[in-house]
């Protein structure tokens, strides 16, 4: 098991910076020198074989126990909020809840019962953060608290998170859960900004760093889950799906996640059969939320090129046409901070 390194530049970042003409930035960003090493790193993926899960909940217990030291201990009374319509979220008095996601329960068992091809099915699905490959929760966090690490773990830093819950809003499964009364916001302007800290499965990153498996993977008496490098696990998931004539969830959802579920029943049928709602994610088809941003990022590469060409063409047309005015159909305007000419021949312009 590879220990994750905190910052993870890679070749595509270099190439991107270089094409933006910002190659030098790569040098000032931390650990750019490890670029070559990072190529060898691979994301970790979990595989749930849903034919094996009996819904015993041993994984849920293990998760709660292994991560108890990370659970919030809020300070009371909670600071008053402005405006008063802002609701606090307090799960600290409901720590025993295990049938949904809460800041104290990062994994729960979702059950689906029904009929498929004339046969009854009872399928249990351990649900938690999917650890998306390009996670909107991390990409849209305005504060940098949520991040995807090189080994694919998506994690919210409880020291930095302000509990604005944007990550939950933009997550296709609304996974992160808020606890009020903890975290950095208490030290800033608790009345006016922030509302606690967001919590979710962190893939037992601390156990991974020690070379151990996540608690839920290890605790399962039926060996439902496996964890390994992406290429291996994706191949295994496909082999398993072929064997049982089954279906995969998580490989392409939201552009790809690092949690794969294999089921003998199609996921749209399971989706219709499970209870979804607050703290209970659905199994719907989730399109890639970041697809537009990715396309625009590449379009942005051409913007400076277009600007430079337009600027150069302008000079060309002036030189050949003798057109001295700028935009010929528009009167040149004196910019507000253009002072008086600082000498006879040279004007000022900003």
């Amino acid at each position: 098991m590879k220990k994750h390194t905190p910052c993870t530049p890679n070749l595509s970042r270099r190439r991107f910076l270089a094409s933006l003409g910002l190659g030098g930035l790569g040098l000032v960003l931390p650990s750019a020198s490890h670029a070559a090493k990072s190529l060898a790193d691979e994301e970790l993926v979990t595989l749930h074989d849903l034919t094996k899960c009996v819904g015993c909940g041993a994984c849920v217990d293990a998760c709660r126990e292994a991560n108890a030291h990370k659970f919030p201990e809020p300070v009371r009374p909670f600071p008053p909020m402005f405006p008063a319509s802002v609701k606090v979220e307090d799960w600290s008095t409901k720590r025993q809840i295990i049938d949904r996601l809460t800041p104290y329960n990062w994994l729960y068992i979702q059950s689906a019962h029904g009929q498929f091809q004339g046969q009854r099915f009872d399928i249990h699905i351990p649900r938690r953060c999917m650890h998306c490959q390009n996670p909107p929760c991390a990409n849209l966090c305005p504060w940098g608290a949520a991040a995807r690490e090189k080994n694919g773990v998506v994690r919210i830093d409880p020291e930095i998170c302000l509990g604005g819950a944007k990550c939950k809003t933009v997550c296709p499964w609304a996974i992160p859960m808020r606890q009020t009364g903890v975290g950095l916001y208490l030290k800033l302007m608790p009345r006016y900004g922030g509302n606690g800290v967001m919590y979710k499965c962190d893939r037992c990153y601390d156990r991974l760093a020690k070379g151990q498996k996540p608690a839920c993977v290890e605790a399962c008496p039926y060996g439902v889950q496996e964890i390994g490098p992406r290429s291996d696990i994706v191949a295994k998931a496909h082999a398993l799906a072929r064997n049982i004539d089954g279906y995969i969830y998580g490989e392409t959802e939201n552009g790809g996640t690092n949690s794969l579920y294999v089921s003998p029943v199609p996921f749209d049928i399971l989706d219709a059969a499970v209870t979804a709602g607050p703290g209970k994610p659905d199994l719907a088809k989730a399109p890639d939320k970041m697809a537009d941003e990715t396309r625009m990022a590449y379009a942005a590469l051409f913007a400076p090129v277009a600007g430079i060409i337009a600027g150069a063409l302008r000079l060309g047309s002036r030189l050949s046409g003798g057109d001295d005015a700028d935009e010929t159909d528009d009167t040149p305007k004196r910019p507000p901070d253009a002072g008086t000419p600082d000498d006879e021949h040279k004007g000022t312009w900003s």
Partner: protein
Amino acid sequence: MSLPVSRRMSWAYVLVLSLLAVTGAMQMPIASRYRIVAVPGLAWLGDFWLTHRLHYLGAIALLALCSYLTTRWLLEWRRSYALTAFGLVRAGLLAGIIATGAVRVLKNLPNVSFAPAPTMLVDWTHLGLAVLLGLLALVRLVLARLAVKASSFRPR
């Protein structure tokens, strides 16, 4: 002597920067909390995806505009005009905002991961420089107003 930046360009700059300022500010989860979304016509400010994509679009427009003006500056105007101190500071701030924004766009690409600390540094720098640019525009506006007032009272 004609000054180089046309009215059309000035307006494009103001429009693009306003779009970026508004959509950028809305990346903080304040539109719902402070009931901005309840103001008729402003509900869209609460849509994180919409404002995020508009911010990207604005950034593309700003990149095109800045590179166009920089090219013309280098090729033509540099010989006849000097940058004021204001202009220099503004160019520096814009460069910083564009660079930090580019890093953030890069981070949002698939397969790119940054640790929280550098991400936070980049985010805060981006926000801080944008606020400074706004303040600079304000100071410049006030100074310009004062100058107009002063000149109208000064005997010619």
